[in-house]
């Protein structure tokens, strides 16, 4: 019983870390976007204020049970992926390292890939029940885009699996520690394919076709306000952090302490953000075909590279 209690507290700590870091990243991205636009931009903590304001809305509407469940589906996906992805590398010696050993140090990639699609699908159901046509259009766009970027992403992962005969995230981290080489250098093609897939995964321009504020009125979330939007916002932040940590674990050898973790994830996060700020938006079919073009080719190269070397 005590064990479970401690585990729960540690899981809470991980969740709070992810929430804080993810929200801060969101604010910093807004700040950076502002600076690129030659504005001052909001303060870095703006997202916290927004979240708190949404949380303290006094009135709200819902369109039925599935509308509630959609947000819950989204949250459960973020939390569970965060629990399964190793947050810190197993070799680290910081005093807080054991806090972030949740269920993770056995994490399996295929399991992770599928659990990560659970939320968007549940969210899609919630968006469907609102009956807003814009929501449904956004959902179909999002699912189409997912089919697009999943191909290079899976190819990169399969290339790694081929090279090291494992599907466990923790094994990849151990391999990187033992050999001293990050996998982004060991199989550069896999890293490039994964990063190109990442552009679609984080939905910044030119792949922000789901929300598309100008034509879809923010798409799937258009009927959500107050608590729903708060849940989605915080789960989105946690999910962003979880995905970034996964990338760091796979390609950059994980992080031994929190400072390194924040530095690495932030650097990685800047790729889609900076690419997005200066890009216009693709149409859906253009986006999907883009992913099936060069990224898939590089993914094939990655597999070839993994098979040959």
């Amino acid at each position, binding site marked *: 019983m005590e064990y479970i209690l401690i585990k729960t507290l540690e899981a809470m700590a991980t969740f709070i870390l992810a929430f804080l870091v993810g929200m801060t990243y969101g604010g910093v991205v807004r700040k950076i976007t502002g600076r690129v636009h030659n504005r001052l931009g909001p303060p870095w903590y703006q997202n916290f204020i927004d979240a708190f304001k949404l949380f303290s809305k006094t*009135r*709200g*509407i*819902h*369109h*039925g*049970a*599935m509308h*509630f*469940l959609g*947000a*819950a589906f989204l949250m*459960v996906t973020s*939390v*569970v992926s965060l*629990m*399964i992805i190793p947050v810190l590398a197993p070799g680290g010696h910081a005093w807080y390292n054991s806090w972030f050993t949740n*269920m993770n140090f*056995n994490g*399996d990639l*295929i*399991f992770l890939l*599928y*659990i990560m*699609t659970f939320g968007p*699908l549940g969210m*899609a*159901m919630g968006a*469907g029940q*609102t*009956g*807003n*046509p814009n929501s*449904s259009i956004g*959902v*179909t*766009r999002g*699912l*189409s885009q997912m*089919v*697009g970027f999943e*191909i290079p992403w*899976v*190819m990169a992962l*399969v290339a790694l699996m081929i090279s090291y005969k*494992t*599907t*466990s995230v923790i*094994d990849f981290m151990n391999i990187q520690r033992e050999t001293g080489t990050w996998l982004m250098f060991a199989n550069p093609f896999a890293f490039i394919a994964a990063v190109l897939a990442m552009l679609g995964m984080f939905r910044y321009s030119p792949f922000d076709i789901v929300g598309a504020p100008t034509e879809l*009125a923010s798409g799937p979330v258009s*009927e959500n306000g*107050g*608590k729903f939007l708060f849940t989605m916002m915080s789960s989105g932040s946690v999910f962003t952090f979880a995905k970034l940590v996964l990338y760091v674990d796979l390609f950059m050898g994980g992080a031994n302490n929190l400072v390194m973790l924040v530095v690495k994830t932030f650097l990685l996060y800047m790729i889609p953000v900076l690419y997005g700020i200066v890009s216009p938006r693709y*149409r*859906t*079919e253009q986006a*999907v*075909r883009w992913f099936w073009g060069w990224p898939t080719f590089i*993914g094939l190269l990655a597999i070839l590279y993994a*098979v040959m070397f």
Partner: protein
Amino acid sequence: MDMITLILLLFLGGAIVTWLGGKLSPIVGDMLFLVTIIVPAGMFFTGVTVGEVTHLHALGLTLTWGLSPLSYLFSMIVVGLGILLAIYAVPFMKGKQKTGAFYFNFTLSVMAMLGILVSKDWVSFFIFWEIMTWSSYLMVILNGKDVQRVGIKYFIFSAIGAYAMLMAMVVMNSQLGSFLMADTFNNFQHLTVGNQILIPILLLTAFGVKSAMMPLHVWAPDAYSNAPMAYTGLFSGALSKMGIYGMVLVMVTMINQLPEGTLIRDIIAWMGGFTAAAATLWAITQDDGKKLLAWSSVGQMGYIIVGVAIGTPLAMLAALFLVVVHAMFKGSLFMVVGAIEKQTGTTDFREINGLIRKMPWTFISALISVIALAGIPPLAGFVSKWMLYEALIQNNNYILVILLFFASTAGFLYCYKFLHGYFLGQEEPEWAHVKEAPAAMVIPMLLLAIGTFVLGTFPQLLFKPIDSALQYVGYDATGGHLWGQSILFSEWGDIVTLQPILYVVLAVFVFFALFLWFKGTKGTRYVSTKDISTSGELPKEWENLTFKVNFMQPFERTIEPFLKRQIDKYYTAFGNGLEALFEFTRRIYTGNGQTYAIYAILFLALLLLFRVNLFG
């Protein structure tokens, strides 16, 4: 009399009695039908033991029947699905035409499938195979729609399969002198090399037709959607699995003994992978729930074929697991469509909207089944897909893995389209009168949906029967720890460590759902789907805000180049070519005496001309 024979005879007799009883009064027919299915099924569960063999002497032949662990696994699907669908079928068929014919063919199909599974010689196998084909053919044309197009397509492909199987049987008998399956498998080495390749290919053609492998799948989408929905669950869930059953036998016993076996395995695996991907894309473009599920069935069979063709123990485990799970969730989904058809009278996504509040139980079973179909973790579909990917990676089939991943990701699109099409979206006043389906229809589909949940949490329940089935067909004994061969399960320690994670998933889910609910009840109210943010407009009653037509248009545009190529067109071109050929022959046989006289004279003249060459 022996138990197996008795059960089969009960089914046969019951089918006839039901038909006759149905003529007296519909209620008598319903009752008789339920008794006919449930009593022999119960006898099967209690009375039949694995391994018992019985001989039947008829027409100078010895028919050998018996239950092996492999066929036990499949017969569980047939009998279980048969009972649930029978309970479902009674309210489904109420007030419809041709109830008697439906009951008759349904019972006969169940009997034929059990017969196939207990057959230990090729003669009874073939007989039962034909009974199955015929009864399902009659089901396909039961509603009298599209008999020309759908029925004939199914019939022609079944005939091709049947002839291929017959030919293989004849060759085997002439070479080996036995119809017994065991004999043909054991003496396979004594055949000539040509026959060794010919026989498996012929058999695989027969089984490939039944399991709708591309390019032999053309009949399946139409036939599945044209049959009554109460039967389609059995059709897609159990009947097409007979092809897989045969394929497992052929793959393991014959192709394993061939030096060229790996090549054939690779070809079949690629055909399976292609089936999975292409059928998924076609499913996305469908606007009818029946058609969508039919294509999705074809796609899921693709996964199973890949697993069977790869043939490592893990791949076989994955394939057989998916066989059982697919029967469950697809059975449930076809029941859902049937319930919707019964309650609303149509199955077109573009017409039905927002049934979620009218048919909540149907929606719940559809939701669970769809999550299982998409292969998302807490449910059983995921376990089989997981093992399949692992098996493929271990077996160095990397590109095939990518293909299957693609198929499975694209599968989300039609999964969402299905749920959105029927249950979500705007609630139109047109469907305000719709009520939940009767309990006898809802309970079977809920049971199947819950079954996928149970198997997803406790997959080891199914691993043991599959393990003994695999040992029966000749895999190494694993002591019940088959899943230890997977990287991931050995990584997780044991399958049991997966369960805490699933419980955590559930706990977190419930926690947040409750959080939102409690947080939401105060100050939150329900608004109808007409009250949405539409730039301040008030939608009128007749204004349809639903987004249903061209639902997946962006994706369809993306895959447009692919969709232009249909195997159907090639078959049609082939058929047209044949027709031209027949047209040409008709010019020779004009039916005019004078023409025939000229032919005779020409023939004689030719003989005279070449007499030196011919007669020396």
